[in-house]
């Protein structure tokens, strides 16, 4: 593993301060894992960690809401729910019962770029975890009443997380405004009407196309014997037939000319919100990493630029966040601020733009780069506490970028970013032509959902 920190020091300037901070930093411990592929195409990663008597298992399927078609938004996630509704040898709801009653935890999640299913279990329940994941990969059982039931559960999930929440519509609409390509333009949770339209045949078809071993990655991390574990994996998953590769998704995002704006009048909100979204390159690219460093400099910690300017100095906002997504396709850097009542959104927007302009003009300091690095290192090390989370990340890196070893190399890539690269990336990407902006304003109760007003430029 190469440390890039020392290269940075050769550049001169404020060497000593940086060196003193960085001098005794620990390294991110390496995760050693095996990487095998079964004959049916299932890719299997196994990593040993004997510090606690448990293991994490994660199955990452190469399908997300980007694979959906118009009229069926929300389907990848609805389908994820159906994976808990029973398979050939597992009854509906039995998955929850078996995992929790044997001391485990579990869940499944869907985003734009992948769907994953995962459990943490005491180490003596390896067969249970493998059996449950393989049975539903092999032979999902679907019927109308279970689909209707989960359609209801998902619609309540949407109400809980979006429709009954202040700012719920704003956080969905920002992507809708920013993207033109349907793949990322529509929401993962989906439209109610589309959820209503989903049929049992849709579920069966989706299962056939996407839920095949050659479209999935299985990761196991924990107190395991690697050879014995692989034998068990072969026993449970080896006979599941592969399927033709799913159709590729066109992720091309047309060029953007001019900024886009939307105002939402939100009867559930009591204070304003501003969300800004800039188009940036996909994850695992040098520019995306530079913008990740920038996001950290802008908003991580109470010494960050946006916190100092917006929260402390101007007192426009109670909280402000900058976040560079690392998507497989065209990605986004978001900046969003929760405003104090009475603050004009345009004043807040201008203060954010001023901070971005300052980076574009003068760049960031060596100390800021060092700070971002040590914050990132601490986060990366802390996320390794959980074997399950490590498993999920290895699986996700494999599906996203074909590079499971990013679990080890992300810190090096982050450390390779220089202050100059951050300045250049800010100049190139954080420009008006690439900006979409949603303002959410409190509105009087009106007996209907939040309404939006769009302005294109």
């Amino acid at each position, binding site marked *: 593993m190469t440390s890039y920190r020392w290269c940075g020091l050769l550049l001169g300037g404020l060497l000593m301060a940086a060196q003193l901070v960085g001098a005794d930093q620990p390294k991110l411990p390496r995760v050693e894992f095996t990487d095998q592929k079964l004959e049916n195409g299932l890719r299997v990663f196994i990593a040993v960690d004997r510090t606690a008597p448990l293991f994490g298992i994660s199955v990452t399927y190469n399908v997300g809401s980007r694979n959906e078609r118009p009229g069926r938004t929300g389907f990848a996630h609805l389908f994820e729910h159906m994976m808990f509704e029973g398979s050939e040898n597992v009854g*509906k*709801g*039995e998955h929850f019962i078996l995992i929790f009653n*044997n001391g485990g935890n579990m869940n499944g999640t869907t985003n734009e770029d992948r769907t994953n299913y995962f459990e943490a279990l005491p180490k003596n329940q390896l067969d249970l975890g493998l059996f449950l994941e393989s049975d539903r990969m092999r032979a999902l059982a679907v019927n109308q009443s279970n689909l209707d039931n989960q359609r209801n559960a998902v619609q309540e999930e949407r109400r809980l997380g979006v429709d009954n929440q202040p700012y719920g519509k704003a956080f969905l609409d920002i992507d809708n405004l920013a993207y033109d390509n349907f793949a990322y333009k529509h929401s993962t949770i989906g439209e109610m009407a589309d959820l209503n339209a989903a049929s049992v045949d849709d579920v069966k078809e989706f299962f056939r196309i996407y839920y095949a071993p050659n479209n999935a990655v299985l990761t196991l991390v924990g107190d395991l014997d690697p050879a014995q574990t692989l034998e068990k994996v072969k026993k449970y998953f080896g006979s599941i037939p592969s399927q033709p590769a799913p159709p590729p998704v066109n992720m091309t995002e047309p060029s953007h000319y001019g900024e886009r704006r939307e105002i939402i009048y939100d009867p559930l909100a009591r204070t304003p919100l501003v969300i800004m979204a800039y188009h940036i390159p996909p994850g695992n690219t040098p520019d995306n990493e530079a913008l990740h460093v920038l996001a950290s400099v802008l908003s991580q910690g*109470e*010494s960050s630029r946006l916190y100092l300017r917006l929260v402390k100095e101007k007192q426009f906002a109670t909280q402000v966040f900058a976040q560079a997504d690392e998507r497989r396709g065209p990605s986004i850097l978001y900046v969003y601020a929760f405003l104090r009542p009475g603050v004009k959104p345009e004043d807040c927007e201008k203060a954010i733009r001023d901070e971005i302009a300052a980076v574009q003009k003068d760049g960031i300091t060596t100390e800021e780069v060092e*700070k971002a690095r040590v914050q990132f290192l601490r986060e990366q090390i*802390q996320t390794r506490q959980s074997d399950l989370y490590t498993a999920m990340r290895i699986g996700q890196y494999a599906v996203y970028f074909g590079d499971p070893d990013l679990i080890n190399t992300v810190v090096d890539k982050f450390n390779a970013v220089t202050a100059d690269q951050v300045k250049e990336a800010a100049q190139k990407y954080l420009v008006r032509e690439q900006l979409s902006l949603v303002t959410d304003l409190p509105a009087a109760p009106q007996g209907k959902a939040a309404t939006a007003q769009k302005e294109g430029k």
Partner: protein
Amino acid sequence: MTAKCRSSISFLAALAAAMAVAMPAFPQEQHAAELSKVVRLNRAPVSNETLQVTLPRPVVTKLPNGLSVLVLERHKLPTVDFVLWIGTGDMSDPKDMPGLASFTAGMLREGTTHRTSAQLAADVDKIGATLNASSDFGSTNSAVMASGLAPSAGQILDLIGDVVLNPTFPSDELEKYKRRQLSQLEQDRSQPYVLAQERFRQALYQDFPAAVTLPTPESIKATTPERLKEFHHHYYVPGNAILGVVGDVKPDEIMGLIRKSFADWKGQPAPKPDWSHLPPAAPAKICLVDRPDSVQTNIVAGDYGARRTDPDYIALYVMNRVLGGGPQARLFLNLREVHGYTYGAYSRVGDDKYREAWAANTEVRNAVTDGSMEQLMAEFKRIRNEKVPETELNEARHSIVANFALSLEQPQGLLFRWMLVQDYGLPMDYWDRYPVEVAHTTPDAVQAAARKYVDLDHLQIVCVGDPKQPATIRSSPSVTC
């Protein structure tokens, strides 16, 4: 946001009336022709062995000034976590100043005799650490928490020591803090669960301090540096504190660093409040809280729970596991998996030095509010009236004990367990005996806990929703509160 309050009649009569309205003012959703069913095929390979896990024990020390220190070594990764509990939280707020403990904690980072707010922020961020202080409403403790890389342990301790021993509560920073808190209060009050908790705790705890869940604009505005200094002076004293450390540390070395930061901490021991006298449980009632344009009803229903030190706490915990403690439990399987009313339905047992609440909660679309109430009540009655079948109880007990293996992975979680032991004055073998006691909880003990704690005569129910929502419980004249 208004809560309707009308005079109270018995809850059971209220519910009966609510359910008996033949012609609801608005149509309620009918049950689907065919309900989805939970099915046990019992074909999965399950190991029946329960891993015997012993939690690693911390080194416990008491400094001459009275500060208790727990050090737990975990060397998997080069990180360190610190938790400092001050044995006084928002439960001890003066009546005229709800939030004083929170404000005091929240202002610790805004200036000390050695560092300004900006310098503190810079020093924390420079080493990649996190440092936060807070109290929660209903909590008997305030907490200062910090995390970082193991080689920074000394710098982190220096920062914790500085904010805990030397805060100055500067008035310019306080004015800014107050403005942020006023905005935050507005933001919080837009959340339905915040409104539900507010009304539920008022209904349950009446004039007991645990009834308070939010500051008021008046209490925020009235805060002065003097009030914060006074609170800090009385309660931020070593005899009223426990410091826990977990991570990649050597006990001798870390104790040296702790002494360096905390040996000079002085102060008279803080008074220990007695939280054992709750108001008599209020008669059962339903409280409606208006949240115009809500598309769901947030339901909370509960009673006084038990203290961890009460003899039937473990029986209550096991009972709750069966009833609502997870997606494998009855409430979730019924309200979500069978009826499709909700994304989730759970119940929880609180844990503090007073009888924290036992409460169930679920969020349901407006049209099934009545049906959801009906199913909640049916499950409450069932666990009271019928003994939990032996196999179901076995699974619940097993789930709790087997989960101990997973708890070994999270250093902060482990530390938290030991800080509880210290804080409550429990014996050091508490976590060794705990799984044994869980495993020996009998069906009779579980039923006794259900009858005592799922107390329908005193059940407090809160529904937050749109005032125009189509629920018969709304139009029923017997709705109280």
